[in-house]
């Protein structure tokens, strides 16, 4: 299967071009800093009349972890977009594809190979980075999120969604166009989620529908809510429930995990966009 040849080549490129190395070094720095920050939580309230309780500590740690992981998911999505946006277009522009695609390899194999390489990159980076962060938080604060595996799945799913979209754009547009468009759409979907939440709070059907539509059109924010949910301790969810729907507009809160049907939709969405990318590149004149 020549697609795997392209996958290997894609991984090799990311490693040799040091994108990976830079990302890893920065991640180590960020993890070190945040871990130091987390390690200060138990000392909060020291020297005051009331030291913080275990529940408070878990609440602070979980909120902080959600913020850190939001940044992580942003970096992951950002990197995925910028790795995918030029993945095909740069090779077409430079002429690299001419020599390659005159070989007995189909465009389908080429695009799927690129996609698999990018997905593998996301997995190789995201799983260790997020796991190490969660383990360190567990060690220094004694807090571990209730659904770590689900968290990984949701945040990686989010990255794969934007990566697939960027790869589709890469079949037709220059890397810069694909990269900027990918990020703007990602940002729009995030705001779409907030708009939908505001609609819920104020019982406004139009706004709610905007939120739902944006969740379906680009399911990054929907998956992000799943990631948030995976990080929240049950006590926090219970407290927010008591507060009513007001919490719905908070992009760093989710009362419920995404429905199974929504997860299925996300998988179909990814496959559908990948299929369009293959179709688009098959029709591309080189």
């Amino acid at each position: 299967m020549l697609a795997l040849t392209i996958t290997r080549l894609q991984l090799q490129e990311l490693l040799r071009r040091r994108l990976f190395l830079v990302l890893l070094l920065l991640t180590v720095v960020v993890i070190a800093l945040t871990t130091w920050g987390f390690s200060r939580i138990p000392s909060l309230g020291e020297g005051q009349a009331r030291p913080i309780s275990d529940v408070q500590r878990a609440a602070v740690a979980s909120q902080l972890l959600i913020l850190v992981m939001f940044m992580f998911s942003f970096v992951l999505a950002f990197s995925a977009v910028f790795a995918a946006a030029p993945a095909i277009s740069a090779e077409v522009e430079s002429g690299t594809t001419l020599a390659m695609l005159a070989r007995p390899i189909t465009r389908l194999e080429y695009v799927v190979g690129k996609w698999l390489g990018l997905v593998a990159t996301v997995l190789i980076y995201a799983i260790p980075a997020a796991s190490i962060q969660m383990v360190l938080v567990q060690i220094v604060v004694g807090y571990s999120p209730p659904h770590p595996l689900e968290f990984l799945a949701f945040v990686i799913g989010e990255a794969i969604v934007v990566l697939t979209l960027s790869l589709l754009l890469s079949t037709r547009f220059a890397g810069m166009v694909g990269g900027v468009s990918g990020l703007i759409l990602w940002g729009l979907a995030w705001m779409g989620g907030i708009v939908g939440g505001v609609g819920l709070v104020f019982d406004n059907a139009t706004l709610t529908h905007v939120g739902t539509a944006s969740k379906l059109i680009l399911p990054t924010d929907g998956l992000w809510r799943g990631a948030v949910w995976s990080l929240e301790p049950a006590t926090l969810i219970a407290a927010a429930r008591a507060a009513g729907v007001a919490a719905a507009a908070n992009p760093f809160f989710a009362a419920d995990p995404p429905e199974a049907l929504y997860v299925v939709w996300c998988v179909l969405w990814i496959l559908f966009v990948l299929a369009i990318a293959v179709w688009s590149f098959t029709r591309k004149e080189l």
Partner: protein
Amino acid sequence: MIDAPAIRTQELAKRYGSITALAGLTMTIPRGDIFGFLGPNGAGKTTAVKLLLGLTPPTAGHAEVLGAAIGDRDALRRVGYLPELFRYQSWLSAREVLALHCELAGLDRAAWQREIEDALAIVGLADRGSGRVGTFSKGMQQRLGLGVALLGAPDLVVLDEPTSALDPVGRHDVREIIRGLGERGTTVFLNSHLLSEVEQVCHRVAIVDRGRVVAEGTLDELLGGDTVRIRVTDLDRAAKTGLSRFGQLDDEGEWLVIRGIDTERVPELVADIVRLGGRVHAVEPRHESLEDRFLRLLGQPN
């Protein structure tokens, strides 16, 4: 199909919107030919190559490469291609690029090592095989591209302007490589705007202009072999005039040019000159140069 021609096209055409890149290309290139596809920039040469390799679909017409329809995977396994825009993965070494193409071409893994070393040696990169392509000069990258096109001893090698980045030594090397391919019976499709290059290596030539083939044939057919130049001294004007029965005479001082002469009569002409008291220093059959013919076909004054 062993007997099928290397390339056969029938009214092959390509339009980009309102621009006609190639208008009705019909040609047959037999196996083992070194075929020159010659034309000015923008004549449609590269478009023709891209159509033949299935990199872009034709708007009309039909073509077969090695007896199979365009883009056929088995046929593509037996084709080597050096694009005009030659670029290879800059983060790979030359050997790795060649290995990648061995893999894409579906060559037997056991043969890779030998194929790679052979290709590096042929194109003169034997001592740079481990170097990163990104550090190579343009000329070295073009040599590498030629090596890529030669992997696996393909039946058809398509070279699109293969010497555009090379110095005179490199151009000489490429001509030798093409001749070597011809001796092995490999069909070579050579795209070029360099007349001398085509003139020196090709058996047959098609001249293409504005998307159309304006002339096609062997070099002899295209250029004609009916002119002879003779360097002669001690021959007076009257005697020279008497030679006009052999053809149209052009007196260039020491050199006499006789056009439209039947080449069989050249010895007779020389004998006549000697009999008339002339001393013959040199006899050169002269073709119309490809350049003259080219310019004439393109309707430009020489």
